[in-house]
């Protein structure tokens, strides 16, 4: 995905929701933010590698 089209806090939020649901317990917001950055990073850098 092109980084320009990433909306922070909206893009790929569903993936994060799935991750949290799979965990089965609430998580600290810092941990959640880090996981969200990882998801966004993967989206953007996979485009770069292609």
């Amino acid at each position: 995905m092109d980084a320009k089209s990433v909306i922070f806090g909206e893009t790929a939020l569903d993936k994060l929701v799935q991750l949290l649901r799979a965990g089965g317990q609430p998580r600290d917001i810092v941990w959640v933010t880090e996981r969200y950055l990882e998801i966004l990073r993967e989206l953007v850098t996979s485009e770069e590698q292609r």
Partner: protein
Amino acid sequence: MSDQPSFSGNSSQRELAEQVFRIMQTQGAFFALDAPIRQTLANLTDFFASQRKADPAVIRQEIAAALNENKDIFAQEEHDGDVVYVISRQGAYRPRQEDTSHMFKHRLYEPENPLPVDDISVVVTTTRPALTTVEPVFISDYWQQQAGLTPVPSGLPEEEHEPAGVEAVSTVDVVEAPEEVEQVEETVDAEPVASTSSLPTTNTLIALPNGIQIDLSRSVEDLMGQYGATLVSQFRTAFENDPLRRLVSFGNDVYPEAAVANFGKNDLRRIRDYLTETGEPLLDTQIIADIFYHNPRQADYEAFRFALNYRLNREKDFEFVGVANARLWSTKGMPAIGGKRIKASDMGQIASYLEEDFDDSLNEQSTEAIRSSGSLNHILSFFEWEYGVLPFTKALRALLPGPLLSDQRTAVLRFESPQHYTTSLVELRYPTGNRGGWLQGFEEFFHERLVPGALITLSRTEEPHIFTITYEEQAETSDRLLVLDEKKNKFAFANVTYYCVVDEDMLINQQQYGRLRNLKSLPMNERRKGEQVLEHVFATVGEPVGTRSEPRYYSTNEELLVALNVLRPASPSYLAHLLKTGEFYEEDASKPGNWYYTPPPRVTDEDEEEDDVDFYDDDDE
């Protein structure tokens, strides 16, 4: 209107060319007017040979000859040894020319005469949109290059490469000998192109809603290290504004809304009844154990706990009064903590001097010392002792936990007295806006165990909401101390026996502060105004040095501070501010720290004059 072109050649050739044109026109009947319609010579030969029952070789020659005569209409291409004729529905095929020299996107993002960019904030707007949707801030490559956020790609004019070129020269200069200047220049030309072409072409910069750009090619640890607080707050804002509410939070915990358990009216009623019956705020874990019989060893315990906190926080009948790691809940109808002698609105304004930067509480103990030792010493003033209130100073802020929720107004803490095995529920009111915060609920403990001037120590325990309050004991001491007779609403001196160590300067006994018995117990709403309270206090505690017609009073900083703290809490810097800014005060030039107060002239009747006589008489006691 005829849509058929005119054909050339002899009559049979013209006829044949026209037939071929019609066939191809029919073939592309649904094409765009200027779209190419292609047909091979082989196909045309087969068609006409079968129609005319003639020799295909002859027909092929005839078609080729006829169409060669009309080359301006039938364009020819060679494909795999066969001739392909190309026309359009209009006649000859002419490739479409698209004029892209005046595209709106170019004019918008790459203006001919751009404004100078001194700061990226010129381009990025931080104003909030009218609708609370989270919109990304797109910045064109042009502006990003101007602001130096992205590297300049190759293929731009020479001057664009200047910074890279200069750097390259300087690097090479060090290595190369000075006489090889020509060679160096060649290297300079080649290097920037090579370096820029090796840069990744994909943009990995994303813009946060507040305009800050972060590069996702960096590691998560790096990003969190540099922008951690911003990223967390922007992410929190983003998912809180998400119209689908996919993620919800309570404090610092985040969980998908769809997975949060619901509580029915009956559940909420049971929680409310239990809280009311207990009579004091309860921990979430206690509510879960006592009402829902949920076991911490159950896999969904934490999710259930989150659900309870999240749902109760959305109910207006419940109020969160806990702190981090001790989530306490209160409900309507529970007994007020700290009594009702002072209204919250009055106390908030009385303590507002703390928010106006007149807080001296860290002069004797630093924040670090309080945090590391986990305890704080404090000398009780009369006001604090009388009403069981402690202003929420910076020193207390260092010791006590902050609010867990952004809109949290109060927290309930428990102060245990290890010397007497008693506990006091204390309400901590956090500061809001320009109103100060305070703790209330110590009244009973203070009145039973301490006197104004007592030195107390507040300490943390392992539980985040439980603290201890201690004091140093001493042998029985009796003195005539200032007390407030609430029935008469007057101050008086009475014999008091106490067992705690006191600061002698802050101990309000008759010997030191005899004049204070004439202090009026002003209504609490009048005590909000520090200026008026000080005028009254000065006229009461100060030594009269004027005449009856032109009264004047003289007092010291220390005396005024103790006396002012009888009616309202005040810090030394707040007192100094009142004295310096008050127009009726004048510092004694010969003795700094001593002050004169000359009350403004006022019309008095005889009764008031008689009262004044009483005031002067008290000096003789």
